[in-house]
């Protein structure tokens, strides 16, 4: 599969995850969201940016349980719960936010 943004075609896997995370840009994230019928707002970006930093440091996309806990620590308890994260990313916070962040699907996510 592939994704076209501003005239450039990017390779993705069969579920729409970006093949090469070095190609990522915020425009790609926005295009993926539009294709899903979503609109990225500041709270979405907080999570997406967190995931990119996590990947940079640990070379993995965190499991949803780990993400929830870490968001709570970083952004406050009111955001570190699955209700908040599922409202932002109804297809599953780890899965959907990782896709927009250009990361591979979280390890153990089936």
């Amino acid at each position, binding site marked *: 599969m592939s994704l076209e943004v501003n005239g450039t075609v990017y390779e993705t896997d069969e579920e729409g995850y970006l093949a090469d995370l070095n190609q990522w840009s915020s425009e790609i994230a926005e295009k993926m969201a539009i294709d899903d019928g979503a609109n990225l707002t500041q709270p979405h970006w907080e999570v997406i940016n967190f995931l990119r930093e996590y990947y940079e*440091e*640990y*070379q*993995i996309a*965190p*499991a949803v*349980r*780990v993400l929830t*806990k*870490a968001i709570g*620590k970083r952004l406050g308890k009111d955001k570190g719960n699955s209700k908040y994260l599922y409202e932002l990313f109804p297809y599953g916070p780890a899965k959907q936010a990782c896709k927009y962040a250009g990361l591979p699907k979280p*390890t*153990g996510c089936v």
Partner: protein
Amino acid sequence: MSETKKFMYLNRRAPYGTIYALEGLEVVLIGAAFEQDVSMAFMDDGVFQLTKGQDTSDSDMKNFSPTYNALGDYEVNKIYVEQESMDDRGLTLDDLQHLVWEDEDEDYAKKPSIRVVSRQVMADLLEEQDVILNY
């Protein structure tokens, strides 16, 4: 809820050259979701998996050593390393990454995860387990 079992993931191979170390680590991260009593043990060439300063740029393999630092987030905080295996390879605790976990009950205080144990203690630990997975 079913009873918690003691799971130990035993790592005896060098980090690169085969896929065992990476696959084993991924299984630990996936298995962490099942909320069992998980520990990891490193012996023989497996102790090299935890060393600092790994550089895979001359190989085709990704340097996945940073991922060991995520184990604490997955509540895997019992990481046993066999003393004799380190001695045989000229390694000391200072050659290993400083892996920590954060204790939520103590305001996220960082505590070390690695415990260096003798071969005898390792044997006792193995004896205690319900399940041992060997990589």
